[in-house]
């Protein structure tokens, strides 16, 4: 179907170092950037149809930087700069810097604008908060009915995606990239886990790298290899309205977004181009087969579906009522299940890169994506942390067509929704559930979803039954930037964990088993991890897996189950990602000898935490649990209740006394029931994720994906004591870390406690707030929360030291501690007290082990306070 057999087959070379599949704007940008890196002659771009992407009227052409995360914003910013640069060089792009005007109709939207404005300082973005009248000055067409204010981004603009794509293509050609049209990919072959050869309609091409930029078809192209590369995308209908030319329309009309009306519009060659993101999108191609030709993808417009958006548009700009219709187009768009772009190296096949799911923002995304993919291909790393966009954030379930169908109804609408903290999807739920899920639901759990896993966020015993008296499935909602509705529930859970005993479900955590016949498993882990893994059997170590730059690719706990068997516990979102990291960096000589198995789905993890947890567990097992025989940071396999073979770790990831029990699934309900029953006399209480999170933030524990990312090193986050430079193996990242130790760190992880913040009235910190030191912006918060013991807002974040010339200087403890700090929350600055190490919280239940332990420490050379663990090592020797 792809190519007319009568047509003369395009000629392709037999070899190319990089094959880019897809001649849309993303593929064109990748080709251009590869060309810039001098790889032009080794790059081939194939396109099943003609290059140039979408039909001219099926894209809005916004080049804007209003993105929900730093990564996305930076990529968009680069794209815009690139388009400007091309324009300056005289290439056609249609670029017009008209600015973007973002409108708010309610208080929460305004708050999100204020947050954006605060962030703008940190993110280097120019923007301005506007009153309704000022909004009208920027765009006189607007009706101010219901408008509370706006956000003006002067450097945003519009362009013609078609022209930009062609300019990329022309530039790529000039830089030596070969472009072959009417050539469709048939199969992607791999050898030894790496891309080797691509079969096309014009013949076979051997290659080293394959880049899937096929947009709509990315998911289908993913199925053309073995193993299948999972690119979870679903096509939905998406409308653009074009009017006929309107007289006296200002050619410099800004790009206007009325978020709460779910619409946007711009001026485009004398007429108006408008569109929007409806609450519930309409699915197309339910069977997953997407026609190849542009024409066959033209859907008749669904006016009824567009009605809401049309009315919102006419409400916002009354004069458009008299505008004449040119056309309403229904051009399809693909969305990923979390409404974010999909980038990076496929976890299934090495050297297979994906750049897809650019939603409707292809032009804002493509430049940055082209650059980072080129960096990844040519250098192995890039200038920005990409983990939130990384393709390895998905599991197989995300690629299930029925899941996509369910979820992607909701995804486009998220685009224009207020970015509330802890936002949850309503669709695609109840997918992965732990065996004790029904009990948790009955206990009043209100759930959040992570990697498809339903995890109790908090417990609310009110209104927990439906009309038939059955436990109701409830999804947690925050929907405010101030004091959240779940505050009191979390407070009681927090207190239970601190003063009595809490029980929490940790089942979603990533769990791997590593084993080998000989000592290979130790060799592998020593190479991958920065901490020394060759510890006494029964010990647990926290360690990072560093990348060559010293950044965290993974942060995990390793329990040495036996001489040659380790269990790894990592954050939930690491399930796919860390496996691909391990596979990719497995030394060749160990590959056949070490077994790595993802056992996430085999174990249920229940954590009991709090001062009574030891007594409780003692009641249910024969093993002596005193600190002497089962100390902190150790592991034992225990009988619990009538069950056996329970892997018990004496850690809680929150700083409380307690245990995490990894229970083979079939015993989970039994063990849970016993714990819960026996715990009644201690008033055991269910604790959700929000409570354990509050605990760890107060104790200054860093979490991967929230505080730590691929650009953060252990030295920057008070964990240099966990890096064992002296171990006999040259682990990944060692030299970079050594260098950093020499030069000093450029940023440092701190805890900030806000003074004079009234948690009842003031807006809360939700992460991403700028930190000021002596009035100068020095960094951003990562995770934040309310400290129920401190009774203060607690912020974790990174502090830099930038001098007046913009030069980054090393950050020392003295520098950090000598400053006067403020944190800006939605435009209001609060004074803050700074900490460099985990504080000891006042407690009625003092515990020597835990007081001695500081997850985050200010002195790299601080002596290891876990004396018992060295004792163990001694006995072993």
């Amino acid at each position: 179907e792809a190519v007319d057999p009568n047509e003369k087959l395009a000629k392709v070379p037999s070899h190319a170092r990089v094959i880019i599949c897809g001649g849309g704007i993303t593929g064109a940008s990748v080709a251009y950037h590869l060309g810039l890196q001098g790889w032009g002659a080794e790059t081939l771009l194939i396109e099943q149809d003609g290059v140039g992407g979408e039909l001219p009227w099926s894209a809005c052409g916004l080049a804007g930087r209003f993105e929900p995360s730093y990564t996305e914003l930076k990529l968009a910013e680069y794209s815009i700069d690139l388009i400007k640069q091309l324009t300056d060089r005289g290439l056609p792009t249609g670029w017009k810097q008209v600015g973007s005007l973002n409108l708010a109709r309610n208080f929460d939207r305004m708050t999100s604008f204020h947050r954006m404005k605060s962030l703008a300082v940190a993110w280097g973005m120019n923007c301005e908060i506007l009153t309704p009248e000022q909004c009208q000055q920027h765009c006189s067409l607007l009706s101010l009915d219901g408008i509370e204010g706006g956000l003006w981004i002067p450097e945003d603009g519009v362009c013609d995606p078609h022209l930009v794509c062609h300019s990329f293509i022309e530039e790529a050609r000039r830089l030596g990239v070969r472009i072959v049209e009417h050539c469709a990919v048939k199969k992607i072959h791999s050898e030894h886990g790496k891309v080797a050869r691509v079969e096309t309609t014009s013949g076979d091409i051997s290659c080293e790298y394959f880049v899937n930029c096929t947009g709509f078809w990315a998911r289908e192209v993913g199925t053309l290899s073995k193993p299948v590369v999972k690119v979870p995308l679903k096509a939905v209908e998406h409308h653009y309205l074009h009017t006929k030319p309107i007289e006296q329309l200002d050619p410099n009309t800004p790009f206007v977004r009325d978020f709460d009306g779910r619409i946007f519009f711009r001026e485009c060659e004398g007429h108006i181009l408008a569109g929007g993101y409806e609450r519930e999108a309409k699915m197309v191609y339910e069977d997953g087969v997407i026609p190849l030709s542009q024409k066959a993808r033209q859907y008749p417009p669904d006016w009824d579906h567009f009605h809401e958006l049309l009315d919102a548009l006419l409400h916002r700009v009354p004069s458009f009522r008299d505008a004449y219709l040119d056309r309403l187009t229904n051009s399809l768009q693909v969305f990923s299940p979390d409404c974010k772009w999909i980038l990076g190296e496929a976890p299934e096949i090495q050297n297979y890169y994906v750049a897809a799911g650019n939603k409707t923002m292809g032009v804002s995304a493509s430049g940055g994506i082209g650059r980072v993919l080129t960096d990844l291909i040519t250098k192995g790393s890039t200038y920005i942390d990409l983990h939130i966009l990384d393709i390895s954030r998905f599991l197989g379930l995300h690629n299930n067509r029925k899941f996509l169908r369910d979820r992607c109804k909701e995804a486009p609408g998220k685009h224009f929704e207020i970015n509330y903290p802890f936002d949850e999807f309503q669709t695609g739920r109840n997918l992965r559930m732990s065996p004790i899920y029904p009990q948790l639901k009955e206990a009043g759990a209100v759930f959040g979803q992570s990697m498809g896993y339903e995890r109790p966020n908090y417990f609310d015993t009110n209104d927990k039954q439906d009309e038939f008296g059955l436990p109701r499935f409830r999804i947690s909602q925050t929907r405010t930037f101030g004091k959240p509705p779940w505050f009191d529930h979390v407070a009681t859970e927090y207190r239970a964990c601190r003063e009595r005993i809490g029980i929490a479900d940790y089942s979603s955590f990533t769990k791997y088993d590593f084993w080998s016949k000989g000592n290979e498993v130790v060799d592998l882990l020593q190479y991958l991890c920065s901490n020394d893994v060759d510890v006494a059997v029964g010990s647990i170590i926290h360690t990072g897996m560093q990348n060559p730059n010293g950044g965290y690719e993974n942060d995990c706990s390793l329990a040495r189950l036996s001489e040659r068997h380790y269990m790894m516990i990592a954050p939930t979102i690491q399930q796919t990602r860390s496996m691909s990291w391990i596979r990719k960096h497995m030394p060749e000589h160990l590959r056949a000898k070490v077994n790595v198995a993802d056992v996430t789905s085999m174990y249920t993890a229940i954590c009991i935490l709090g001062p009574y947890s030891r007594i409780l567990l003692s009641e249910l097992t024969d093993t002596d649990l005193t600190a002497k025989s089962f100390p902190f940071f150790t592991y034992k396999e225990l009988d619990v209740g009538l069950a056996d073979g329970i892997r018990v770790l004496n850690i809680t990831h929150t700083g409380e006394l307690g245990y995490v029990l990894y229970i083979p699934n079939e015993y989970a309900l039994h063990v849970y029931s016993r714990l819960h029953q026996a715990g009644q006399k201690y008033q055991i209480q269910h604790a959700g994720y929000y409570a354990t999170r509050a605990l760890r933030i107060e104790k200054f524990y860093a979490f991967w994906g929230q505080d730590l990312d691929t650009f953060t090193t252990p030295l920057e986050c008070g964990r240099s004591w966990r890096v064992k430079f002296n171990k006999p193996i040259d682990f990944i990242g060692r030299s970079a870390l050594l260098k950093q130790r020499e030069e000093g760190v450029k940023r440092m992880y701190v805890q900030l406690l806000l003074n004079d913040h009234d948690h009842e009235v003031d807006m809360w910190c939700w992460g991403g707030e700028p930190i000021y030191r002596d009035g100068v912006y020095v960094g951003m918060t990562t995770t934040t929360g309310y400290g129920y013991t401190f009774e203060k807002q607690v912020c974790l974040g990174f502090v830099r030291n930038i001098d007046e010339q913009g030069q980054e200087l090393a950050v020392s403890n003295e520098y950090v501690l000598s400053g006067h700090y403020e944190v800006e929350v939605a435009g209001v600055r609060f004074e803050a007290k700074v900490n460099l190490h985990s504080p000891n919280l006042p407690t009625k239940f003092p515990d020597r082990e835990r007081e001695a332990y500081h997850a985050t420490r200010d002195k790299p050379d601080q002596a290891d306070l876990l004396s018992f663990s060295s004792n163990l090592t001694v006995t072993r020797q």
Partner: protein
Amino acid sequence: RLLPQLPQLSPYDVNITLKENEFVYNFPVEGIIRSYETNQLGSNSPCEDSRTEASLLHRNGFICGIFDGHAGAACGQVVSKRLLRYISAATLPRQVLREQMKQDCTSQSFLKCHNDKVDFVSEIRPLYEQSFQRYIKRLSGEPSRDVTSELEQAFLQLDNDLSEEALGSNDARTMGVALSGAVACLVHLEGLQLHVASTGDCGAVLGVLDPETNQWHPKKLNIEHNVENMTEVSRILGEHPHEERETVIRNGRLLSQLAPLRAFGDFRYKWPLKTLHQKVVPMFGEQVLPPNYYTPPYLTARPDVQQHELCSNDKFLVIASDGLWDFLTPSEVVSLVGEHINSKKILEPMRLPPGDVKLQQISEQLAERKAGLTRKPIDQNAATHLIRHALGATDYGIEHSKISYYLSLPQDVVRLYRDDITITVIFFNSEHIARLKGESLPTPSPPATTTQAPAA
């Protein structure tokens, strides 16, 4: 009324019953009528209502009728087939009729019936054909009259033929037809001229859309011949001696027996007493004689004929037997069908009016569709929609249990609660009417602008 306890039917069963006799006909060629929708829900077993619709041949016209029988279904069935044939011949220009007669035309030469599934038994068919041939022979010799008179004459002629056929043959079947009765409502449409001829208590109502207010108005196109109609009562009383004042109409019925005051058949109320004694009593016994039967005929088949010239605001015509009118008033019926047109539009994709359209106009059109969406009907068929409302409407919308109740009543009592219901809804093509009248359509007029005419 004390209602018996009944098991409830499932929505599925209710739908099966309600939709059993649904029929829709879309005219393939563009004309004044776009389509008609019809349905029938029996109460009597067998159902005593009949209906027929036909296109007129040799000219551009449509004819349809519904017939509510009583004292058996026979008369209604016979009249429903024969009356249309009589009229199709009578309204044909005499010249054409004569030419056709030369080519040995039959009673079915002048019309094409839609959805016609039954025919007369073979023994009786020649008898009816003879009557028809006599009738057209006579017609061919007479000068043309206006449609109103032709309709009236055809009604009377057919009724007369029924009488003669019964008296002339000793067949129990023709006598059965003559002794049972039927009221009729017949619509004749040729060009823009609409004629409604009605005998008895069926009803015809035109749905008119006021383009200014967008409101639906009913326009009644017949007068019911029953005791509620004072003119009709006066007419009957005037036709009989003063002494009979107390007996002609008693208990709201003619001779205390018959509810409609005009009807086909029912020769027990038409023939002279002598004829009844000679021909009927021997066959059926004394009880066929009505009480106080002194000065026959008491009953006539003469229709009330109303003429109306269609205009583009006339959107549809509903004709229905009294089973429907027992539940719904004409204005309720018109608003139900009117809303149904709007709400049905949501089931089809939106069509933009041709030419330049303003966004505001589109928004308004969409709002209208949306209004329909909230009342998205269960039934596509307007007649079924009306039946469902007749049986199930409450202040809170359609109540399933109420419909279920009406449908599950046992055969021996059901007639006390509901009569046979027959409905035909004819939808006009406003654009075509406007063109014929040389007017430009007021826009935006929702039914006209959003539905597209089938290609001619």
